[in-house]
């Protein structure tokens, strides 16, 4: 019996020492990690709304539910309200749509009137060299900027695609169209309410 006790104790001691060491490292590293995540978040949103200086996530359950249902079949993951100097200047919508090699995570910036201010890709798994042309072909993402307020799926469909990576390009177009729909259904109503 004493022998197996010695085994259990030695494993226990190792676990305790390891756990304490890791907890301490985590305590030191945790603030840094949050800081980095927030910065990364900030950078991705600022990419689509250059003139905004602050973003705060929208928590209003009911609004998010309406927007998510409007954004089908793409899945809407988050909505942020973009602000400059305290006043609201538009929205940043995070959407994930289906590309060639799997889900593509995008961020679409919309100003208060509903026209697109920018589109950026957070992560995707497209085939290097083909699917990644949506990134390397500068004109592709730029063509979405300036979509008129109240644009709908047909306007997005009218924009051209990249030869050789249609499915990846369609993925991005679906994302932007979804953001447009979400804006019409949910955000617009929200904005009028704020004005009265």
């Amino acid at each position, binding site marked *: 019996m004493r022998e197996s006790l010695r*085994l259990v104790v030695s494993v226990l001691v190792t676990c*305790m020492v390891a756990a304490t060491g890791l907890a301490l490292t985590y305590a030191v590293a945790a603030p840094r990690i949050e800081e980095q995540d927030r910065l990364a978040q900030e950078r991705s949103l600022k990419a689509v709304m250059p003139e905004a200086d602050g973003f705060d996530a929208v928590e209003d359950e009911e609004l998010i539910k309406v927007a998510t249902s409007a954004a089908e079949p793409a899945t809407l993951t988050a909505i942020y309200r973009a602000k400059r100097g305290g006043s609201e200047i538009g929205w940043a919508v995070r959407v994930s749509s289906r590309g060639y090699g799997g889900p593509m995570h995008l961020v679409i910036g919309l100003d208060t009137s509903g026209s697109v201010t920018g589109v950026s890709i957070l992560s995707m798994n497209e085939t290097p060299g083909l699917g990644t042309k949506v990134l390397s072909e500068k004109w592709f993402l730029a063509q979405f900027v300036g979509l008129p307020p109240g644009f709908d799926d047909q306007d997005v469909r009218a924009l051209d695609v990249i030869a050789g990576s249609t499915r990846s390009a369609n993925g991005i177009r679906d994302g932007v169209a979804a953001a447009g729909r979400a804006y019409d259904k949910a955000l617009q109503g929200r904005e009028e309410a704020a004005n009265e």
Partner: protein
Amino acid sequence: MDIVLIAKAVGALSVIGLVTSAVLSSAARRFHVEVDERVEEVAAVLPGSNCGACGNPSCFAVAEMVVAEELPVNACVAGGQKVANGIAAIMGVGAGDVAAIVSSRHCGGGGSCIRSYGYAGVRSCAAANKLAGGPIACSFGCIGFGDCVRACPFNAIAMDERGLPVIDLEKCTGCGICVRECPRGQIHLLQMLPEKAPVVVRCNAHDKIKVRKGNCAMCCIACKKCERECPSDAIHIIDMLAVVDYAKCTGCGACVEVCPQRCIDLYGRDNDAVAADGAGATCGSDETVKRGA
């Protein structure tokens, strides 16, 4: 500041550590398998090559069954008498005699056999045999890519310069894997013979004599000279091929001398007329190749 975090972390990991090591140490005791030390000894005596000749997956399985008396002491065919005696000593039981057998090749053609097409594929007899019956014209003869050489767990077989597998009778344990592995094993290209079989017919052909002679210079032409010559009536021409009845054969070697094709070789484990590596091949050696080419 984060004492709570450390406490929770230490708590979580030590719970997992505790549970896992406790389970392990109790399992070590409960599942302790008491191994009969005789099994280890018997396993040590067995050849340990898991050849499967005795029909069991591995020698360790045989050792366990022998100790549990489910298998006779001389179960190991490959090990032969030596192993049987060793096991009997461990088990304290009398060792029965083991019918020792060895493998033999019924073909003398090899390089001198006519090729029906040039083969450049995977160098394995099984693969070549599937391609229109193999690259050699004779559909009973040895293709020579050495599947038997690779399969033999006791590496008792080696290819000679004629491209034919030569079986070293000292190392051969009669496990029969080469016969199973050879694509023409079922039609007795390789065949298990009693270890004392004094002669072996180096031909396996059953097609017509004229066709046979066209394909290979070393074939048996069923001239019946050996049948008439044999004093103990041990060799007969059956289905146009000389077949030896090893019960009657006394090993006088009369048939070897009289065969015009020199297609019968001396053989057998302790037959001193046979070269150490059991080749003793007169058939297919140089002067017959010249005559037959």
